[in-house]
């Protein structure tokens, strides 16, 4: 069995060099989640470059956006970038389903693998629209700067107190919810400025689509303000953050950053519904981790100069130099990519998200594995052993599916029973062969247990042994 598996993998390797660790068959992109916003966050020293996706679907006259920023931005600090950058980064870094093929141990010829590339169904995205802006009228609010950047009209405001700002925004057509006022005050006192955006319909490009806005500023504050957005939101919102840094992973410092479960073997039928599978998995994990965590979905070295594998397997082409420059990572040298997924609500996320760049260079991806069974007949002894192994494996896959996504295994009775029927009487049903693809790290129960036992043992040892004492002055 093992031999065949190795031949199989080598064959894949030579024909598809990019995917030696299985084929990507489906991906779960940002669009499967409702109310999802996407942000590219580039950090280089004290410099932050923030790109905000804009897929506002309504009348552009209704579009407006207020973003707290640490400094008064100059004209050169603001630009628009093509919206394709988001879809590129999203499709490159999204959670992925990969598949492997078993080979019939009763047949010697290795069959050519056929792989269907599938795109999952995408649902329409809804973006929360900030209130719109009509005219400029001043009311205890200072307009620090005013720019026209492509289709956008931009104002940078500073205010002395929130009431004035609130009145100003109201008078100018920004329907600021009452609950937002309490959030405005801390921002003002913290000396933040307000980056206020509306769209001039006449300057819209072809197709009437708005491009993402990109702003850059120098500040020790490395954060994303989410509190203003929560003021008028009902229920949870999702945000995908694509982070780029020189040193390594970006992580949240005031909330826990958790790796999403990865390298799990799931049943083959997940392939037909991978989008919903991941959505359910995320939901479960979000609840399991107390609804107040930030999830890591991807981390990889994407430096153009770095010769290593940029993804494994790739669900989208890795970002090239031009994409990275567009995103704001303009330096030469190492570029590390981090994809964070946060679902936030007002009660669990009282503070804005604060981040740090860490030197953590470990690669990570949300990866789920399906293994396609070989075709029969399985008359030979090896074939029967293979069937036994497969029945066990499929049972495990169903269990895993329930743990990960909460899908009920009894809904698919034939997934296991179909193969159990093929096992002939007399074949050794207890003969469990080594799985072709070793199980991923899983939830790591065994290492946890071993470590715990070792630690408890060591502590007991140190507490109970009689350590030799002397009269010499004790030092710690």
């Amino acid at each position, binding site marked *: 069995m093992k031999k065949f598996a190795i031949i199989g993998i080598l064959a894949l390797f030579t024909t598809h060099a990019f995917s030696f660790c299985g084929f990507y068959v489906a991906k779960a992109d940002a669009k499967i989640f409702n109310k999802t916003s996407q942000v590219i966050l580039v950090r280089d020293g004290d410099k932050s470059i923030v790109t905000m996706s804009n897929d506002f679907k309504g009348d552009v006259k209704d579009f407006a956006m207020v973003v707290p920023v640490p400094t008064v931005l100059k004209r050169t600090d603001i630009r628009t970038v093509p919206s394709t950058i988001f879809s590129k980064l999203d499709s490159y870094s999204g959670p992925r389903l990969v598949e492997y093929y078993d080979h019939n141990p009763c047949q010697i010829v290795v069959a050519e693998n056929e792989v269907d590339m599938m795109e999952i169904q995408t649902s329409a995205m809804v973006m929360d629209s900030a209130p719109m802006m009509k005219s400029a009228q001043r009311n205890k609010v200072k307009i620090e700067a005013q720019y026209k950047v492509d289709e956008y009209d931009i104002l940078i405001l500073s205010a002395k107190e929130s009431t004035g700002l609130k009145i100003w925004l109201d008078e100018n057509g920004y329907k600021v919810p009452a609950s937002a006022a*309490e959030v405005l*005050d*801390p921002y003002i*006192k*913290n000396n933040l400025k307000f980056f206020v955006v509306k769209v001039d319909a006449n300057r819209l490009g072809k197709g009437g689509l708005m491009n993402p806005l990109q702003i850059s500023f120098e500040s*020790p*504050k*490395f954060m994303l303000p989410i509190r203003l957005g929560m003021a008028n939101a009902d229920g949870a919102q999702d945000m995908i953050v694509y982070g780029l840094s020189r*040193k*390594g992973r970006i*992580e*949240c*410092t*005031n*909330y*826990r*950053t*958790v*790796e999403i479960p990865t390298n799990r073997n799931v049943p083959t039928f997940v392939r037909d519904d991978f989008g919903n599978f991941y959505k359910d998995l995320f939901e479960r994990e979000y609840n399991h*981790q*107390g609804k*107040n*965590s*930030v999830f890591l979905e991807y981390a990889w070295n994407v430096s153009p100069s770095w010769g290593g594998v940029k993804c494994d397997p790739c669900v989208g082409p890795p970002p090239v130099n031009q994409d990275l420059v567009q995103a704001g990572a303009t330096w030469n040298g190492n570029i590390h990519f981090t994809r964070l997924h946060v679902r936030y609500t007002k*009660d669990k996320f*009282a*503070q804005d998200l*604060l981040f*740090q760049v*860490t*030197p*953590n*260079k*470990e690669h990570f991806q949300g990866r789920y594995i399906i293994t396609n069974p070989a075709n029969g007949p399985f008359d030979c002894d090896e074939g029967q052993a293979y069937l036994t192994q497969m029945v066990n494996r499929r049972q495990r896959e169903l269990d895993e599916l329930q743990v990960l996504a909460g899908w009920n295994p009894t809904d698919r009775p034939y997934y296991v029973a179909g193969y159990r029927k093929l096992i002939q009487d007399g074949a050794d049903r207890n003969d469990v062969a080594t799985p072709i693809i070793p199980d991923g790290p899983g939830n*790591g129960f065994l*290492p*946890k247990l*071993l*470590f*715990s036992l070792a*630690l*408890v043992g*060591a*502590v007991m040892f*140190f*507490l109970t042994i009689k*350590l*030799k*004492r*002397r*009269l*010499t*002055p*004790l*030092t*710690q």
Partner: protein
Amino acid sequence: MTQEAIKSKIKIFKDARDFQIIWLSIFLLYGVWFLDWDNFVGYGVLIGTCLATQLFGGFLLNIPTSSLKSAVITSLSLCLIFSANSLFTYGLCAILAISSKFLLRLNGKHIFNPSLFGIVFCLLFTGDAWVSPGKWGNEYLIVIFFFACALLVLLKVGRIDTSLAFLISLMALEYARTCIYLGDNMDVYLQKFSSGTILLFAFFMITDPMTTPKTTKGRIIWGIIIGALTFYLTTEEQSYIAPVWALTIATPVTILLNTIFKGNQFQWIPSHMNLKTSNK
């Protein structure tokens, strides 16, 4: 019989370090089981290297083996706080932490908190180390548990004054800023103190009896200095591990405070007990 029983009771846990070892281990196990900390090899290297360094140093300097307990505490603290890419950095951190006790000494007493020294050195000079303040999550129940455990140790060691001075000054300053000046709500304020990182620091790092001032007065002033520094570094410099830097900066102040307020050097095991056991 009763005398014997009392004697043996005194023997177990007469050393406050026993409590510390137990609590720190519980915190680590909590992280492993509930917060998905899975860097087992790193933990192994930290604990192993700390013990080996302590044994080696102790052998060279003829230091009693009971100080191995201190090494265990240092290594557990490192497991709870320190992260790095390479195992080499873990090893380096452990060696630096323990050897700083032997090498950086003044008046027969080591200057730096050992785990602090290892962490700060690796943060500054290796480019491979980091601290994840967010890794404890924000769970209030855990905070209360943390508080209770720490209290037991500190009452035993008699260093509750430092912790309280630090926490009260930091919480007061933060309250003045967040709730009074910024006009923010209590949720924001409480969330800032619900992280295990700051509590681990408050109860286990700045209370190390060997590197804190000798007198109560000195320790209260010292705790307030660290609290104020932490507040300043968090709000003005946006430092995400402000307490670590604050304690580093405040370390020389200990020496100053010890010259102003004279007191007796702390001993883990009270000297009369020490004499008894060694007379045997």
